[in-house]
């Protein structure tokens, strides 16, 4: 660790390439904190959007026309409006209106970012799940019904496990989009990777270096996600489908 720090300090002295995050303890802590916040934000939104998306997809196939239409409206609204404006709506418009608990707002900027991005991503997840559910053969569902499974049981134990596998590639690209979208939280001062990097570059005046680090970091995270998801896809593959 020390050697890396020395090397980057030496690099700065000899070439002027200023990567303080590798040798300055304060900047390093900030950068790592930003990185972890981005991962944390992504993880919360992923879990939330998968749960909410599965619920919405289930409601989409329900019997009540009113519920179906409400879900459709929700999905279309979140897909066809700018994510940034949604985030502003929650943080600047809805946040101040909500009652305060013990003098403090119910949710801080991180909380609102989680809410906003979760709703956005669940609209996309719902669509993906719906496509996956449609891909489950009708006969499989009928078989489950004839074995006395309730509608919820059929959905949870038979349809969803199969649908999840079918939708893996689409889910991967959705997850990639989620991680990319977390950068919007910069706009409401959530201390995520982009925000922390901006703090570093405005103090150290090393915009080009930090930009390169930032791009490598994001492309790295995305590459890692692609690898992990491909591995998961192979592990969960349903025998008898695909190649």
């Amino acid at each position, binding site marked *: 660790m020390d050697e890396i720090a020395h090397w980057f300090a030496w690099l700065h002295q000899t070439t002027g390439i200023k990567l303080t995050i590798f040798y300055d303890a304060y900047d390093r802590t900030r950068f790592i904190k930003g990185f972890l916040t981005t991962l944390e934000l992504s993880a919360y939104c992923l879990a939330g959007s998968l749960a909410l998306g599965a619920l919405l997809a289930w409601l989409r196939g329900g019997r009540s026309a009113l519920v179906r239409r409400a879900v459709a409206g929700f999905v279309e609204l979140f897909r066809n409006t700018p994510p940034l*404006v949604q985030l502003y709506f929650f943080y600047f418009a809805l946040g101040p209106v909500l009652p305060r608990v013990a003098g403090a707002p119910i949710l801080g900027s991180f909380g609102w970012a989680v809410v906003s991005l979760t709703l956005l991503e669940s609209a996309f997840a719902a669509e993906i799940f719906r496509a996956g559910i449609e891909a489950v053969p009708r006969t499989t569902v009928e078989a489950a019904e004839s074995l006395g499974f309730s509608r919820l049981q059929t959905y949870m134990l038979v349809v969803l496990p199969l649908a999840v596998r079918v939708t893996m590639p*689409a889910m991967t690209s959705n997850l990639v989009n989620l991680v*990319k979208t977390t950068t919007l939280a910069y706009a409401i001062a959530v201390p995520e990777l982009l925000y922390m990097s901006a703090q570093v570059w405005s103090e150290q005046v090393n915009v080009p270096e930090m930009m390169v680090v930032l791009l490598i970091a994001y492309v790295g995270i995305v590459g890692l996600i692609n690898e992990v998801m491909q591995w998961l896809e192979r592990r969960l593959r349903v025998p008898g489908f695909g190649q």
Partner: protein
Amino acid sequence: MARAAPARAGIRPVNALRTGSVFGGRTGMALACALVASVALAQLQAPAAKPGVFALLVKWTPLLAEGFVFNLVISAGAMLVGTLAGALLGLARLSSRRTLRNGSWIVMQFFRNAPWLVLLFFVMYLLPFEFHWNGRVVPIPDWVKATLGLALPIMANVAEILRGAVQSIPTAQWEAARSLAFTRRQTLWLIILPQCVRRMLPPWMNWYAILTMATTLASIVGVAEVMTLVGRVTNAEGRTDLLIPIYSYVLLWFFVYCYPIARLTRRLEARLVER
């Protein structure tokens, strides 16, 4: 993916499901009603002596409309630049020269996987604010830089669309062209690419809608588009009861613009599958 979304198989392997929704209409009407309801509610709560929220929205509509048109100008510019650059990049991807093919792959992957906002920052900070040409100083306005920044991800995705479309043309056509003594270049330009245009249209439109929504990012890097103006209006009025209506109002504008594009995209996609 082919199983999950047969309708879009081969056209757009990644991101395919970002378009496909088959929900019915009337959503827009419901949203407009919701906006009217929120305005009406705010109106009722408004202090008696001050102008109503509805009056304020009407008052600021011309200014916000100007900002929104600016967003549309940026989106059109970025789409134009992005499509031209993307077509070149996509063609490089189809080149028979290996270095060109691999190089364009790296560029494509990089710009598709980097967050839009980071790319926007990248261009805003690293492009000079003016350049010297023929002894004259030509300034580059912020919005032009933002347009270029937004064109980068569009470029990479258009290249990917082109690649997907070329792949969706049956191999038999390449073979048939070869047996008729067409060269590779002739096959590509006279037989393959003309068929690709039709297939590329729906995903291309989808990216246009995504881009239009992304133009709001320009407000973060200091371009005075519609979101910047909303911020100024709410600051100037200093009314908390205006917040929800005005943000809903702008959301509705984007929805009214983007939702028909999404519907049309779906219809075109469905028609492609039928053939």
